[in-house]
Every structure is written in structure tokens, then in C-alpha cells.
């Protein structure tokens, strides 16, 4: 059953890939605009092997990680507190959360630039804002749906303070929290690429935008494919956490929560430095990226298309 399902799924993907390879070669679609899959894959490997893409990949992943960790660091404690605070507080806070959740992160970008200046902090702040709201919503929901029998028996056993928080409440709501982290992470990666296209000097989104500005079509697809893979890997990693939540209710849950917290701090502390380093590397690699149009001469097709665009199709 599962094997058959897997096979059928692979068949669907295979047909799509085959179509992507054959259609441009057979001339069904313009190979200028859609290079065959093999050519795109070769471009991905070349760009990774010669190191062109590595700093961009690095900077994008650091931004995503830092944004997600900051969002979780704010939203999980706040969600735990709000969820445990009772019905009336929740009812009062709900409309506010909803309004904030609807504030478009891109309309905030100019404001964050005002507050934090040009640079990584503004980017990471926008990313944290994007993923904050799903995590907060899921955490509050998770705490509120914890089995009251668990809470009551913990209380009757005299569990209080940090032991109650890390040993009972957090593990009991952990599944919902990780669902929120996964939703927030997905949204964050989604928005990160867009943010990098609008205003950044490095990153996968910037790389794709730059390739598009320079009409390097194979590079557009190569960067796109890599973004797709990164998004899938991020989602896969967060989904694995969601399935196998590392906390158990009880004293050992406390240890696990502490350990995870320490690991997160150790991992993210050098994030800003790493981002600065990657940015600097990109700047030295391409001193003025937007001005260099080091690509082959445009073909007659390109020129015809461009002239059509400028004359509005006449």
C-alpha cells in the first residue's frame, strides 16, 4: 500500500522532470526561457562547486535561523504565560493578536530600517516578526488544550515553579509549539526570499534577483531550485521535530528543555558575525554587483523581446 503510493508519487514527479527535460529540447517551449532540467542541475553544481553561491546560501540560512530562534524565544514564553493566564485575559488579548498578525511584514520593513538602520538586524527583525505570530497562536492554543488531568495531578503532587513550567507545561504543549514553529518557519522562508529581493546585498533571494536583472536565465532556475531544496529541508527538519518532540513530561523533560535552550544559544550567538563575514565576502567577490553585466551577448530573440517590451508589443 505505502510502497504503491510511493511509486505513484515518484511517477508523478518523474513525469514532470522528464517533461522539463524534453520539452525545451524538442522545442515545445522556448529553451531560451526554460532551459532543460539537466542544464539547470549542472548550473547548480557549478555554482556551488566554484563557491559563487556558498556565501549567499550561508547568509540566507543564518537569517532564517536567527529570525526563527528570536521569534521562538519571544513567542514561546509569552504564549505559555498567556495560555496559562485564563479565559478573560485571552479574550482581551485575542483581537490585539489578530490585528498584529495582519500587519504586513513588508510594510514594516521601512520602519525596521528606521529603527535598526540598514543591515542584518533589520532583516532578522522582519523575519522574527513574520514567524512570531504563528508560534504565539499555536503555543497559546497548545497550553489551553493541555489535558487538565495532567495539570491537576502535577499540582496534587506539589510540582511548582520551574519544575512545573519546564517539566509539565512545556512538554505537554510541546507538540502544538513545534507545529507553530514549523508554520512560522515555512512563512519565514517564504518571506525571506522576498525580503532579500527587495533590499539586500547578499542571500539567495538577492542572487536570483540579480540573475534576473542580468538576464542570466539558467542562473534564475538554478537559484530557484536551490531555494526550493532549502525550503524543503527546513520544513523536513522542523517536521521531524514535530513528529518526535524531544520532551517528556517529568523531571527528565526539564533537562531536555535546558539542553535545547543551551544549544540554541550556542548556535545563534555567532550568527551576526557569520552574516557580516558572508556579506563582506560577497562584496569583495563582486565589488559592484549590479553594474557588472558580464554575460554573453544577447541573442536576436532577446533583443526582439526587449524591443517589444519597450514599445508595449507594437
Amino acid at each position, binding site marked *: 500500500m505505502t510502497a504503491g503510493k510511493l511509486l505513484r508519487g515518484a511517477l508523478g514527479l518523474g513525469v514532470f522532470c522528464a517533461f522539463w527535460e524534453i520539452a525545451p529540447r524538442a522545442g515545445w517551449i522556448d529553451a531560451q526561457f526554460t532551459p532543460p532540467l539537466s542544464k539547470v542541475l549542472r548550473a547548480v553544481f557549478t555554482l556551488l562547486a566554484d563557491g559563487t553561491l556558498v556565501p549567499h546560501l550561508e547568509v540566507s540560512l543564518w537569517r532564517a535561523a536567527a529570525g526563527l530562534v528570536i521569534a521562538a524565544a519571544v513567542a514561546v514564553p509569552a504564549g505559555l504565560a498567556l495560555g496559562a493566564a485564563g479565559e478573560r485575559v485571552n479574550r482581551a488579548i485575542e483581537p490585539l493578536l489578530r490585528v498584529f498578525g495582519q500587519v504586513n511584514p*513588508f510594510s514594516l520593513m521601512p520602519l525596521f530600517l528606521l529603527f535598526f538602520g540598514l543591515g542584518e538586524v533589520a532583516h532578522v527583525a522582519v523575519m522574527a516578526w513574520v514567524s512570531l505570530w504563528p508560534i504565539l497562536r499555536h503555543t497559546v492554543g497548545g497550553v489551553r488544550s493541555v489535558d487538565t488531568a495532567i495539570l491537576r495531578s502535577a499540582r496534587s503532587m506539589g510540582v511548582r515553579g520551574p519544575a512545573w513550567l519546564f517539566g509539565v507545561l512545556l512538554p505537554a504543549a510541546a507538540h502544538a509549539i513545534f507545529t507553530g514553529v514549523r508554520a512560522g518557519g515555512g512563512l519565514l522562508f517564504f518571506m525571506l526570499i522576498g525580503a532579500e529581493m527587495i533590499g539586500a546585498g547578499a542571500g539567495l533571494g538577492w542572487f*536570483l534577483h540579480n540573475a534576473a536583472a542580468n538576464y542570466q536565465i539558467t542562473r*534564475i*532556475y538554478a537559484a530557484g531550485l536551490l531555494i526550493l531544496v532549502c525550503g524543503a529541508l527546513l520544513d523536513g527538519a522542523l517536521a521531524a521535530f514535530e513528529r518526535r518532540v524531544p520532551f517528556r513530561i517529568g523531571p527528565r523533560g526539564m533537562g531536555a528543555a535546558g539542553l535545547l535552550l543551551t544549544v540554541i544559544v550556542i548556535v545563534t550567538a555567532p550568527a551576526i558575525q557569520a552574516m557580516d563575514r558572508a556579506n563582506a565576502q560577497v562584496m569583495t567577490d563582486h565589488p559592484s554587483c549590479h553594474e557588472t553585466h558580464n554575460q554573453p551577448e544577447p541573442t536576436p530573440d532577446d533583443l526582439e523581446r526587449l524591443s517589444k517590451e519597450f514599445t508595449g508589443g507594437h
Partner: protein
Amino acid sequence: MGISRYALVAVVLVAWEAAPRLGLVDAGFFPPFSAVIGELWAQGVSGALPRNAAISIGRAAAGFALAVLAAIPAGLLLGTLPTLAECCTPLFMVLAAANPFLLFHVALLFLGIGEAPKITMIAWVCGWPLLFGSMAAMARPDAELLRTGRAFGLGGWALTRRVLLPAAAPAIATSLRLSAGLAFFVLIAAEMMGASSGLGWLVLTYQESYHAARIYAAAVAIAIPGLLADSAFEWLERKLSPKENVYAIE
């Protein structure tokens, strides 16, 4: 309920007004709420805000409508064809994970500069939740409902129309709400990337002139249509949910 629900919103607004006036935060970065509302009014009267808002809402609505027309029928159909659905699901999941902004550049290649790439991008973003939502709703109907429908002598198209579709409606409404939220998120970014009209473009021009109150006003203006759409689809969701929805079995 009632007024007390919005008490906290009022507290936040008062704090927003008071903090810059008392000098707790720099009013140049963080203008008081009344200044933002004043700017919102001024831009509204001058016509810049309504004109660009209408353009943005038109784009979002066009993309959303396209997604609804394409994805919901396709999802409903695939929900009834399990083998085909199994073939397509992994591919669809990969495509759904494809970032809309990279699609924007590819659409730009094929469709040229103009409205079409933006609308395509919104339709793409909105389409996947709708497709998956309607597919899942159709593929896993409530067994008891199905048996009841059959016991009443319904079969084939009549069963689909009178039992399966109404039963799938709340789940579809939920995915509509999710999609509508995404539509506006993505549109603003697209307008910032390459447009000469729309709310996203307006924010960018305000940013370039470093006019903080106008940036806030535009951010408020962008949040309003999103909130309205969210409330409308939440209402629809409630309306279609089993408690209020009487299945059309007579």
C-alpha cells in the same frame, strides 16, 4: 464580551499616543497615533491612498479569483480520483513549496512586465492551500454522512451535490481564509519589487522620503483590507460549519 474585548486594543492605542508625546520614544521614528491618523486622512483626501489601494485590491482580487476558479474544481475532482491524486500529490507539494518570488521572475520572463506576473503570482500562492484543502475535504468524507445519504437513496451526482459538497464546504472556507491572508502578504512584496502603483509601491516611496508618519499610515492602510477579508472569510467559515449548516438532504 462586547466592549471589554476591545479594552486592550484601546490601551495600546492610548500608549501609542502618549509615549511619543511624553518623550519616552523619539517622535521622529515613532509618531503619535493621532499624527498617523491625521496623515491617513490627509493621504486619503489627496487621493493617493484610495487610488493605490484600489489598484492593490484589484490585483489581489483578480489573483484570488483566478485561484478559486482553477484550484477548487481541480481539488474537488482530484479528491474523487484517489489514484490520480496519489500520483500528483508529491509533485504538487514540491510546487507548492516553490517560493512565489522565484515564480515571479519566471512569470516575468514569459508574460513580460505588467499586471500579468503579479496576478499569476498571487493566484499561484492562493491556489495551493485551496487545492489541498478541497482535495482533502473531498477525499475523506464523514463515513456516517455517506451512509446516511445512501440510506436516503442518494447516489452518484445527487450524493455529491447534496452531501459531499456541503460537507466539504467548511474545510474549503478555512482554506479560502488562509489563501486570502497570503494574497495580500505577497502582493505588497511584489509591488515593492517592481511596480509603479499600489500600496507596496506607496510605502516604498514614503520610505525614500523618510516620512515616518506616512509610513505608519500606509502600514495601517495595508492592514485594513487584510483584516476585513479575514473577518469576512471567518464569517463564511462559521456560516458553513455543521452547526449552522443544514445539509440539503430532504
